[in-house]
């Protein structure tokens, strides 16, 4: 008994609408982030993550309203990522009711930003998102590098060293996405997850590749993740959060039921 492993559904939001095909048969408005957040909360999600993929900056303000509305009726932790580039962006999201912000690209281009953010707001609300891709092949020792631009641009930065550096800078949590597995539904990159989780003292959220409930359990049992994040298996109504938790519990994982 003790601390539960967390299940976190992630929603991509574009100009205030959830995209990437959320499909609940009995939901009034499948694109409404508030309605979907409420649903996940009822199903027992441990936290919610919104990824703002809005391209045009003049529509960014819509995300603030989404967070305000969700925070007014869903009382579990909310993380907002995407477009967090300066202290003012963090302040705006926290004021709107977010509990944590995810910093991704901005950390790669300006690592000091993570330090600045953690000093100002505390490590507890700074999640550093790491997009890693395997660069070793065949017999070589496994190695992953940080990629930007949705996994298209290599940076030459070693993923393990980067994760450790981000923790030194004040990251309170690492959101680790395997760019090799993202969207494949083949399961997490377990070796990557375990390597990073063993390398840092802060919690690691595994992301990228979930296609079955067993993948979630593997992320925790084999990957040593402290939390697992998934999008499509929940969005399409294939599985509820409750079913995911039950499966994890059946595999001997401590969850909040």
């Amino acid at each position, binding site marked *: 008994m003790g601390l539960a*492993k967390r299940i976190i559904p992630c929603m991509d939001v574009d100009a205030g609408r959830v995209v990437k095909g959320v499909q609940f048969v009995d939901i009034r408005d499948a694109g409404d982030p508030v309605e979907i957040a409420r649903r996940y909360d009822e199903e027992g999600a441990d936290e919610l993550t919104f990824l703002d993929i809005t391209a045009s900056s003049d529509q960014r303000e819509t995300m603030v309203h989404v967070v305000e509305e969700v925070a007014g009726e869903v009382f579990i932790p909310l993380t907002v990522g995407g477009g967090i580039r300066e202290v003012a962006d963090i302040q705006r999201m926290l004021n709107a009711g977010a*509990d944590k912000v995810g910093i991704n690209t901005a950390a790669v281009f300006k690592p000091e930003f993570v330090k600045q953010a953690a000093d100002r707001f505390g490590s507890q609300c700074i999640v550093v998102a790491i997009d890693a891709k395997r660069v070793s092949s065949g017999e070589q020792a496994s190695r992953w590098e940080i990629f930007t631009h949705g996994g298209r641009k290599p940076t030459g930065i070693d993923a393990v060293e980067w994760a450790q550096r981000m923790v030194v800078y004040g990251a309170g949590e690492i959101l680790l996405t395997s760019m090799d597995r993202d969207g494949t539904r083949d399961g997490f990159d377990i070796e990557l997850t375990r390597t990073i989780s063993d390398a840092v003292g802060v*919690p690691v959220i595994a992301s990228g590749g979930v296609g079955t409930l067993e993948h979630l359990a593997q992320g925790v049992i084999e990957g040593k993740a402290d939390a697992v994040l998934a999008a499509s298996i929940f969005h399409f109504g294939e599985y509820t959060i409750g079913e995911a938790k039950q499966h994890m519990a059946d595999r001997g994982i401590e969850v909040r039921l």
Partner: protein
Amino acid sequence: MTSIVIIDYGMGNLHSIAKALEHVAGKERVIVSREHAQILAADRVVFPGVGAIRDCMTELKRSGLDDVVMQAAAEKPLLGVCLGMQALLGISEENQGTECLGVIPGKVVRFADDMRDDASGDRLKIPHMGWNQVHQQGDHAMWADITTDSRFYFVHSYYALPEREEDVAAMTPYGIEFASVLAHQNIFAVQFHPEKSQHAGLQLLSNFVRWNGDA
């Protein structure tokens, strides 16, 4: 109409706690304030806080709110949350030793870096982050309709080590068993975030809104 004031001393985001209290008490009863007179006139006071303890104590002293918190703690139902709980103890190890308010005898210490899970042997991460069990120690009006071992949402690296066993209202396991809730007369102080703990958290806040300060 009784009022609930959330003390705003510049430490972090009070949006969540205000929204959760409004949800259980009604919008018109919840006030976020740094005005001494308004805080002292309230029927109930919430003492929140996130961040580092030294910043917290510096802000409290600079604004003169340290005395206000002490006075409120002496005379009306007061709910300490997270850093607000820690600030009620005597001293914290954080920031090379920080003197706190000393309302509840005891100190605040950091989790050890090398803690391991008993069952799996896995390293326990710091901060202690997520939903953990809160094991009630005896009855208290604030536990109404909340079963023992209910899960609440935690995020912290330091924990309270009170001197008096009778001040401990709940324990939580994380490598060790630590005091996750303290209760002393009209003070109830929680290490977790009730405003982020869904049903159990809202129930606790709802109990606070009705609590007269007796155990």
